[in-house]
C-alpha cells in the first residue's frame, strides 16, 4: 500500500511513498478489542419521579385538598385506579395467565386524562406489598412507564409528566380494603 505524493515536476524518480501502516493496524486492533470488552451494550435511561403523598412520620398533606388527585395502587393481584375527594375506584384484576392487566390500566388512564385531567399533568402511584403477596419493583416501573406513555392529543396538557411515587398509606385516593 502506498500514498502518491505529487511533486509537480516531471522527474524520473518514483513519487510513490510506502507508508508503514502495521503500527496503525496494531493500534486499531488493540483499541477495538479494548472497546469491545469495556463497552456496555445496555441502554440505560431514567424515569424521573417526585415523592408524593403523606409520609408516615408527618401529618403534612402536600396535596391541595381542593383538587381531585388521580391515584394508582398496584397490589400483587390487582390494580386500583382511584379519584380522591369523589372516592371513585376502579378495580383492574389480573389476567388469567397471572400477569397484571397493563392494557386495561392504560385504557383507564387514557379515559381519565381525556375527561377530568385534560389540563393536569400529575398522578401518583403506589405499590402495596405484603410478606405473602409481594409486589416487585418492575411492576411499579411498568405502571409508571404506562402513565408516562398515556397521551391525549386534544388536551391542553397532553401527558402525565408529573408522576410521583407515594407511600401506599399516604395515597390521596386509597380504596378501603
Amino acid at each position, binding site marked *: *500500500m502506498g500514498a502518491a505524493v505529487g511533486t509537480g515536476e516531471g522527474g524520473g524518480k518514483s513519487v510513490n511513498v510506502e507508508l508503514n*501502516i502495521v503500527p*496503525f*493496524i496494531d493500534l*486499531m*486492533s488493540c*483499541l*477495538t478489542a479494548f*472497546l*469491545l470488552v*469495556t*463497552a*456496555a*451494550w*445496555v*441502554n*440505560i*435511561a*431514567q*424515569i*424521573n*419521579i*417526585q*415523592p408524593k403523598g403523606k*409520609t*408516615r*412520620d408527618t401529618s403534612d398533606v402536600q396535596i391541595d385538598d381542593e383538587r381531585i388527585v388521580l391515584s394508582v395502587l*398496584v397490589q400483587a393481584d390487582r390494580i386500583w385506579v382511584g379519584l380522591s375527594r369523589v372516592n371513585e375506584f376502579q378495580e383492574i384484576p389480573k389476567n388469567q395467565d397471572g400477569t397484571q392487566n397493563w392494557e386495561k390500566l392504560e385504557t383507564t388512564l387514557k379515559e381519565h386524562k381525556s375527561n377530568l385531567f385534560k389540563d393536569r399533568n400529575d398522578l401518583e402511584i*403506589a*405499590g*402495596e*406489598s405484603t410478606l405473602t403477596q*409481594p*409486589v*416487585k*419493583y*418492575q*411492576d*411499579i*416501573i*411498568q405502571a*409508571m*412507564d404506562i402513565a*408516562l*406513555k398515556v397521551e391525549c392529543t386534544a388536551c391542553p396538557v397532553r*401527558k402525565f*409528566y*408529573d408522576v410521583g*411515587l407515594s*407511600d*401506599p398509606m399516604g395515597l390521596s385516593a386509597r380504596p378501603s380494603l
Partner: protein
Amino acid sequence: MPVHPAGPRLYRSIKFKYLVRGAGSATHARASNISLNLTPFVDMMTILVAFLLMVFSSSKLLQVQAGLDLPIAMAKGKLQDTEAVIVITKSEITFKGEMIATVDSVLRDESPTYRIERLFERLEAAARQIKIDVEMGKIPKELVAACDDLKNNKRPGPDEPLCPDGMAILQADLVTDIRVINKVVVTAKAAGFDNLLFAIKNK
C-alpha cells in the same frame, strides 16, 4: 510402537526458495512477496473503533454492580449524572459504594418513621455537600439554568436537565420488594432529595 529415526521435515529439509518456486511455473521464478490489500480491513477497523467510541462515551454511568438487573421500560430519557447514587441489589443497599444495610434487615425493621436511619445520615450529608457545590457554582454550565429555575420554584420541563441540588439516582434490582423502594424513597425525601431518577433498561 517402534521408534523411527527423524526423517525430513517441511521447512527444515526443504528450503523456502524451492517451495516458493514450486508454487508457480517450473520455468519462471515468482517473487516471494505477496501484497495484501489492507485498505478494506483498515476501513472496517476505523468504522468499528468510531462506533465503539460512541457507545463507550454514552455509557458513562453504567457502573452497575454485578448481579444487578435493572427494570425494563420504554421511557427514553437519558440518565443524568449525579454524585448521589443509591444502589439496591437483591441482597443489600449501598450508597456511593458504601454498604448501608441488607435488604432483609430493612424489610424486618418496623420503625414508625419508616426510614433507614443510616442511609438518612449519609444522604443528608450528601445533600448538604451538593447544595454547597451548587451555591459555589461547581456545576456544569448546562445545569446553571436548571438551578436558577429551581431557585425561582419553576419546575423543569419533561426532557429538560435537572439541577443536581435535591436529585439522586436510584439503581434497584427489578425483583426488589416495593416496601424497600418505598422506605428508600421516604428516606431520600426526608434527607432533601425531592427528585429521584429511577435507572431503567430500555426495551
